[in-house]
C-alpha cells in the first residue's frame, strides 16, 4: 500500500502547522498536487 508521510513544515508565520499524518492513496480523493488538503477523522458508526 502506498503511504506517504507528511512532515510538519513551517511555511510562514501565519500558516497553521500541518498535522502530521500518514496519507494513504487508498483513502484519498483528489490530486496529490492539490493546494488544500482536508484530513477527515471519522467514525462509520
Amino acid at each position, binding site marked *: 500500500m502506498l503511504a506517504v508521510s507528511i512532515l510538519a513544515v513551517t511555511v510562514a508565520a501565519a500558516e*497553521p502547522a500541518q498535522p502530521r499524518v500518514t496519507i494513504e492513496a487508498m483513502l484519498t480523493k483528489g490530486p*496529490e498536487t*492539490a493546494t*488544500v488538503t*482536508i484530513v*477527515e477523522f471519522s467514525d462509520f458508526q
Partner: protein
Amino acid sequence: MLKEYDGRVRLVFKDFPLPYHDLAMSAHEAARCAGVQNRYWPYHDRLFEHQPKFERPELIGYAIELGLDRERFTRCLDDHLQRPAVQASVAEGRALGVTNTPTFFVNGSPLIGAQPVDAFRDAINEALQRSTR
C-alpha cells in the same frame, strides 16, 4: 466540494472508530479489506448509507453486493488483517488531539463536528488565499 474546487482540494480520510461504538472497528477494517480489492470508496459510501448495520453478515453482504471476492474479503475481515492500520490511524488522531468525530483539518486548521458546507468553503478559501501570499 472536490468537484467545486476542481483539483485544488484533496480529501484524506482517516479511521477514527470510537471505542463506545461496538461495531465501528469491524466496519473500518471491512472498508480497508474492500480497499485491498480496489473498492474502498464504494464500500465506504455503502457503510455510511447503511449505518449502523455493521454485523459481520452485513459487512460481508455489502462486499458481495459490490462484487468483491467473498472468500478473500472474509479472510481479511476475520483475521483482522487491517486492524493495525486502523489502530495506527486512531493513534495519529489522538496525537493531534482528536477526541470526537468528525474532526477535520483544513491545511492544518481544525474544524470540529459536523459543519455546514459554507464552513468548509470559508476554510478552503482562506487556505487558498494563504497559499498565494
